[in-house]
């Protein structure tokens, strides 16, 4: 696909209007699975967190996780949805080896939350409202690894190995209504929506929503229609687009691909497609023929969920400050201009900065480090700022060391590199790399004496009152101490030794 030459994005938008639908699956951060008491802890050894229920053993039965339902209601409320007074789980019947019962316990025509919206902020500061169709509860599948094929891909594999630790972990599927009217900003809207949704989920504390860990997965459904027409075109469904950047790239690519096919007078087939991080292209997956028939029916092993109105209102009242409100408050607290706040937002630095301040760093310091070193690195590597291998607590510690005069900015940068390189905590790295600022006089004294001895001419000038010449000696000392000396202190010492009063 990527070899085929696509019409430019601009040309595509010149004649076509994109319509998007976004389906996001969020793994909840509950202690146990949706329908059994197995732990959801990541990284356990294969098939060590399974039981008769999540293995689909004959005779086993599901029991609903109360926190799973509560989280679903919270998400629904945060997305301005109506919460069902009465709803049921349904069985979605299809065969696949990663699904132990060969039906997914999900919800069909009775989702727990429906008819909501999420306002997202675009890079120019403007707001776009994304309508939410529904949010429903379901369960995750097991993980398969494919053996014998090239690089673990399914195609050409001789067989597969299944680990069901993930099977049954609670998922909330959030489906937008068709997103119309975004025009050339469709890819940006898609990215901004997923980013904002992630912020909302995190603020609710129902999931870490780490896309890199598969805790949040996005399907991008996209179709084009000729500008000025109403009827939707045939859509493609690009599955498991798993970073914010990829969401934007996938949408962009599909807009160009659809436009290329359509302008050749071709037709788009309704199919699922796979996104490729490497070149940002998508390739054809399974054709959606009508043989697919999920035969949904109400799950007879579970009873209806009927969230009491009073309880729903309690949850609504207890909702945390939602991200957009929080951002407005923080901008004021941090005293940032709209422009600065926007760049902080675009860099995905709001959370990290706030947490760093919470860990004791002054606002300007927290912002300086995240928006400087770290934002640059995130950009270069195309990763999320919040997903860099350094914690707000660690950044706050670096800031503290600078404030205490134990580090200067140059050294602080090295410490941060160390943390990112996995060398440990800031203090350890200062230790190991020997980065502490040298300010104790005995150690400096020697260096100063040596500098004076080696530069008698300059020393003489200073004695004669040419104090500005002291810079040359300071430089010599700093050189000798590989930049670890406290420059101000060095200057004082030199002047002392030369018996000159600094002005």
């Amino acid at each position, binding site marked *: 696909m990527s070899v085929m030459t696509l019409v430019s994005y601009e040309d595509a938008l010149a004649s076509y209007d994109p319509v998007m639908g976004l389906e996001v699956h969020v793994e909840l951060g509950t202690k146990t699975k949706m329908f059994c008491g197995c732990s959801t802890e990541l990284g356990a050894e294969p098939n060590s967190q399974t039981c*008769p229920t999540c*293995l*689909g*053993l*004959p*005779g*086993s*039965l*599901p*029991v*609903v996780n109360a926190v799973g339902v509560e989280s679903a209601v919270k998400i629904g409320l945060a997305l301005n949805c109506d919460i069902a007074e009465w709803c049921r789980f349904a*069985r979605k*019947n299809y*065969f696949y*080896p990663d699904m*132990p*019962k*060969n*039906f997914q316990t999900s919800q069909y025509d009775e989702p727990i939350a429906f008819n909501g919206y999420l306002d997202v902020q675009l890079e120019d500061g403007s707001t776009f409202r994304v309508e939410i169709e529904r949010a429903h509860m379901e369960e995750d599948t097991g993980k398969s690894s494919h053996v014998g094929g090239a690089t673990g891909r399914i195609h050409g594999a*001789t*067989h*597969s190995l*299944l680990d069901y630790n993930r099977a049954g972990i609670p998922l909330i599927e959030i489906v937008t209504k068709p997103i119309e009217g975004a025009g050339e900003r469709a890819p940006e809207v898609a990215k901004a929506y997923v980013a904002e949704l992630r912020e909302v989920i995190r603020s609710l504390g129902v999931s870490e929503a780490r896309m890199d860990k598969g805790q949040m997965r996005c399907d991008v459904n996209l179709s084009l229609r000729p500008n000025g027409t109403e009827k939707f075109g045939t859509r493609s469904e690009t599955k498991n687009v798993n970073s914010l950047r990829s969401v934007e790239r996938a949408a962009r690519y599909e807009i160009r691909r659809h436009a290329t096919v359509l302008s050749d007078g071709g037709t788009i087939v309704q199919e699922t497609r796979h996104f490729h991080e490497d070149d940002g292209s998508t390739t054809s997956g399974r054709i959606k023929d009508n043989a697919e*028939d999920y*035969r*949904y*029916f109400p799950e*007879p*092993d*579970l*009873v209806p969920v009927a969230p009491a109105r009073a309880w729903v209102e309690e949850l609504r009242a207890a909702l945390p400050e939602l991200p957009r409100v929080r951002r407005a408050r923080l901008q004021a607290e941090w005293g940032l201009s709209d422009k600065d706040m926007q760049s902080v937002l675009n860099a995905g630095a709001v959370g990290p900065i706030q947490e760093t301040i919470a860990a004791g760093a002054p606002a300007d310091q927290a912002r300086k480090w995240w928006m400087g070193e770290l934002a640059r690195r995130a950009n270069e590597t195309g990763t999320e700022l919040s997903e860099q291998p350094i914690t707000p607590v660690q950044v706050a510690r670096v800031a503290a060391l600078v404030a205490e005069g134990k580090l200067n900015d140059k050294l602080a940068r090295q410490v941060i590199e160390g943390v990112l390189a996995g060398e440990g905590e800031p203090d350890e790295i200062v230790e190991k790399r020997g980065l502490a600022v040298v300010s104790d006089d005995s150690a400096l004294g020697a260096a100063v004496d040596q500098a004076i001895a080696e530069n008698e001419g300059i020393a003489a000038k200073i004695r004669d009152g040419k104090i500005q010449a002291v810079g040359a000696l300071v430089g010599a000392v700093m050189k000798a101490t590989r930049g670890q000396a406290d420059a101000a202190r060095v200057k004082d010492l030199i002047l002392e030794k030369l018996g000159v009063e600094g002005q």
Partner: protein
Amino acid sequence: MTELIRYTAAETAGAIAKGEVSAVEVAQAHLDRIEAVDKKVNAFLHVDTEGALAAAKAVDEKRAKGEELGPLAGVPLALKDVFTTKGVPTTCGSKMLEGWIPPYDATLTSRLKDAGVVILGKTNMDEFAMGSSTENSAYGPTGNPWDLTRIPGGSGGGSAAALAAFEAPLAIGTDTGGSIRQPGAVTGTVGVKPTYGSVSRYGLVAFSSSLDQGGPCARTVLDAALLHEAIAGHDPLDSTSIDAPVPAVVEAAKMRDVRGMRIGVVKEFAGEGYQAGVMERFNESVELLRELGAEVVEVSCPSFTLALPAYYLIAPSECSSNLARFDAMRYGLRVGDDGTRSAEEVTALTREAGFGDEVKRRIILGTYALSSGYYDAYYGSAQKVRTLISRDFDAAFAGVDVLVSPTTPTTAFPIGERADDPMAMYLADLCTIPSNLAGNAAMSLPVGLAPEDNLPVGLQIIAPAMADDRLYRVGGAVEAALNDKWGHTLLEEAPAL
């Protein structure tokens, strides 16, 4: 000691408690009986000699230590092979699960163990409980101890036959459309389908989740009540389990008094297709109830005529989904995995080889009923019928305490007679299905032999949900009156094996 096998469960428990006999002796006597007759009857798919003797020994040791023994401690039991048993094979009568050894116990299994009940083994059944004759077992049919050439009913034919053949005084069955009551009727034993939700389904391999219900099988009403009390009660592992006290069934079984009770005869369960001798015995029992002081009235439940069609849409629909897990990936049979075939192909080949005809028929029928375009006309309508049937029951129970009918239209038919005529086979459950659709409680109780073939006839008693005690009150009274009249129990007329 062969006399031991003729004891009722209550007598056996009493004798063990008093120390007149040891639980090990009792277990051994039944294991010997199984050894002696089961080649002919084929009631058991698996006999757990070691486990049974160990459980019996544990009861004897408990007693030796002077510890309190439960009302069924040391009593042997035959467990339908549809309940999981940790470390003991569970096949559901299917090739699909041949050799499968569950890593966990069903809640019912652990309750039996906790009660000191001695599980002798696992009994034969129609594959995945789909059938009314036990002919659909992948491991050969079970014979009816009254006439080994005839069916013992189904799907729980093995459990019922084990009782009638004196291989065990107690058995467990499951009733989705009559699989406890119909075998009870045709083998001259007592079978009870408790109120849906009163016996945990955790570890009961599902056929039709909204209809399946485990229940007691025994040779006497009191024994059934004792077993009912041991297995019923709330289970947090089953979301559809009722969190309420179990009705006082043992007390009710001992009352033997129906004076003042109002009993309704269901008008719809008679006429064409009902064997003359069956109706004769049924009408006698209704007369008997009058003599015993009950008030008998006729009631009409017009929607019951739609029960069978609704059942044959709902049960297959749920089964098509419940049995999807048998895909050759995680447990059970796998065929055709030659390294070239895909998982999809291996699944299809395995299901083709591992399932019998009736299971395949129902999976296809259920898949059809749920598929888009047909859902509303079939599954949707069947769910409406379910509502209408519950309404008929509610109306009837507004005027009477229990309903009565023949349990089955005919006595045991010859093995093979209906084997390839599904519709004829389905008629065997005509009278039992409405209670599964409504979820209420029902019992079948032997009320004599049909004169034309000298085979047992069953009386069905139906009570409202959570009024299971009424079944035992009426059943206990009828049983006592008939035993007085006959001077012995019906099973004593059964031919020697």
